[in-house]
């Protein structure tokens, strides 16, 4: 089994928490993993991505080959398109629909969504809205992750366990909020 994921978003949007959660889940299931992050300059509000590779066999490259990616998981709609050259033809785009507008020339959101929908396998969810509805507006990144969990070969419980570990220092309340966020995202994917 092998799953290659590109995590996409804008510096500060919580991509690294998503990566850490999948990473913990993978470790608990004895999977091999490599996860290339972007640090430094781009974290100042620039476009950021993380290449996340999971496999039952040893992994060679830290970078996913273009055309070989299984999932683009994006916390922002336009950013999901930035990496579609990496995506396989039948790969999945799972993206938040709420734009993060920190540039003057952000394109028309409807047009962006329409372009995303041209792909074969797509889940678009309003992760910001869902996160607000469950009273945890800062967990929209984990909502988005929840929607991707059916496509990642890790049992759902492992993601929940991972969240408990990662947010351990932040206390019970934050842990529960994030678990709820994960489940809410998952529900969107399941209702498809």
């Amino acid at each position, binding site marked *: 089994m092998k799953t290659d994921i590109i995590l996409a978003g*804008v510096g500060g949007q919580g991509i690294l928490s998503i990566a850490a959660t999948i990473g913990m889940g993978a470790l608990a299931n004895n999977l091999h993993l490599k996860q290339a992050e972007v640090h430094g300059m781009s974290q*100042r509000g*620039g476009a950021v991505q993380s290449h996340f590779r999971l496999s039952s066999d040893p992994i060679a*490259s*830290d970078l996913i080959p273009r055309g070989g990616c299984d999932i683009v998981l994006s916390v922002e709609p336009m950013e999901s398109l*930035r990496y*579609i050259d990496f995506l396989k*033809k039948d790969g999945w785009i799972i993206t938040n629909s709420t734009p993060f507008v920190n540039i003057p*020339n952000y394109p028309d959101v409807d047009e962006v969504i329409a*372009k995303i929908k041209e792909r074969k396998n797509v889940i678009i969810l309003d992760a910001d809205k869902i996160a607000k509805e469950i009273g945890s507006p800062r967990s929209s990144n984990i909502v988005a992750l929840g929607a991707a969990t059916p496509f990642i070969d890790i049992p759902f419980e492992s993601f929940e366990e991972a969240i408990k570990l990662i947010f351990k220092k932040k206390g019970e309340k934050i842990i529960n909020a994030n678990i709820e966020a994960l489940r809410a995202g998952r529900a969107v994917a399941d209702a498809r």
Partner: protein
Amino acid sequence: MQKLLLLGAEAIAQGAIDGGMSGVYAYPGTPSTEITEYVQQYDLAKERNIHSQWSANEKTAMESGLGMSYAGKRAMVCMKHVGLNVAADAFINSAITGSNGGLLVTVADDPSMHSSQNEQDSRYYGKFAQIPILEPASQQEAYDMAYFGFQLSEKFNIPVMIRFTTRLAHSRAGVERKPLLDQNELVLPSNPTQFVLLPAIARKQYKGLLNSFAGFIEDSEESTFNHYYEGTDKKLGIIACGLAYNYLMENYTETELAHPVLKIGQYPMPRSKVEKLMEECDEVLILEDGYPIIEELLKGYLAKEKVHGRLDGSLPRDGELDPNLIAKALKLASEDEVTEIPQDVKDIIANRPPAMCVGCGHIDAYNALNEALSDYGLGRVFSDIGCYTLGALPPYNAINSCVDMGASITMAKGAADAGLVPAVSVIGDSTFTHSGMTGLIDAVNESSPITVMISDNFTTGMTGGQDSAALGKIEDICKGIGVDPEHIIVFTPLKKNHDQMVEIMKKELAYDGVSVIIPRRQCIQTTKNVALNERIRELNLR
């Protein structure tokens, strides 16, 4: 033992700690910063009393590391590639003195310039210094090389370079630890003149270095970091250095790689293995995630046709490698998967460049500076490296240069010498103590008509908020250097102070001598840093 999930940079830190390191010396710089931060945050390192405080710049770090090595203990010096330019004098000469306790110089290169002003390849420096170089292909190798690197250094009494790149530094994977080794006892060098590079002694030391070189090659021949994988298809042989090996193997996850492959992780090159590959293969492809240094070595001045790589267009001449580029060089690329973004999609994806944070003090300072300078005309602001460099972008368009750390003050001085008056320098607090203050002495000694704006945010912002050596010291440093105290002016860069700032700036711009203006407000990304807040209070900086 359960594997640790570590960034390549962290793996180096863990390997060095487990390998008996007594101190890490470094100045922050992406992508090397996480090495030192890992040591700073690691309980075991505290227990073992391992030095990990930031140095003022890479040269002071290199020299402190050498001092620790002199005293017999194991030290690691870390920096980003351009930091080695700053440390070069100490670095090159450390190869002549040699080391006593194990000494690792760990340098993180940045091919494709993700966060840098160039993509220089530190292996050239290693070659220039004529010392062994280790180049990891994986997080595990990064760990192992730091761990065994000290032993290699002590075997030959020579500093050893670890060269790695952004991609590995910032990629996580499982790493298995080795047994924790004791630190060295304090032992002085057996030869009391080893570190005294007077010409007569230096000549002897240099001959010693030259004589060691055969030993370095022999060690490379036997190194487990260099491996010759036999192959049946000898039409082509492949040399893959460091991370490039992974990109190569990524193309053979389903099919078998039939070409002989020489994987390189330790330099100087293992000569007999290279000779074997060159002899048994018709052609050779060289994969290096950096400059074509090995390719050039093997191709030679006469450009032997048999050798392929970045120099003959088989691979791009610059930038980072990836699996696709190597597939193309090997003519493996398949056409059935879409590997380009369709034009109609490209058209709607807007660039999203990094920008200063909303509410950053640099922004208010630039807004005032732009207005204060409007009477003088454009093209006179020399800046430096830090978050404030982003002032080069719209809507500010506030600066005209960014070259190397500290260059803002000296370039402004040179331009003022040429008649560009007033000339302005914009520099950050950390950059000022890194290498701005020496230039300020030149300006003061000649009373150059420059205005130096030291935008003080109490931290090294661009690299993630590390301690700044300048904290609470800037005015005293400027006074000590000889700037007239009447022309050292501190103010708070806030929108509501805009008019006041413009007025101060206009006045200082008109002054015929060196003035230092200091917009001072904490970087908003550090407001939760408890230790820093405490220091700021103690020093009464707010």
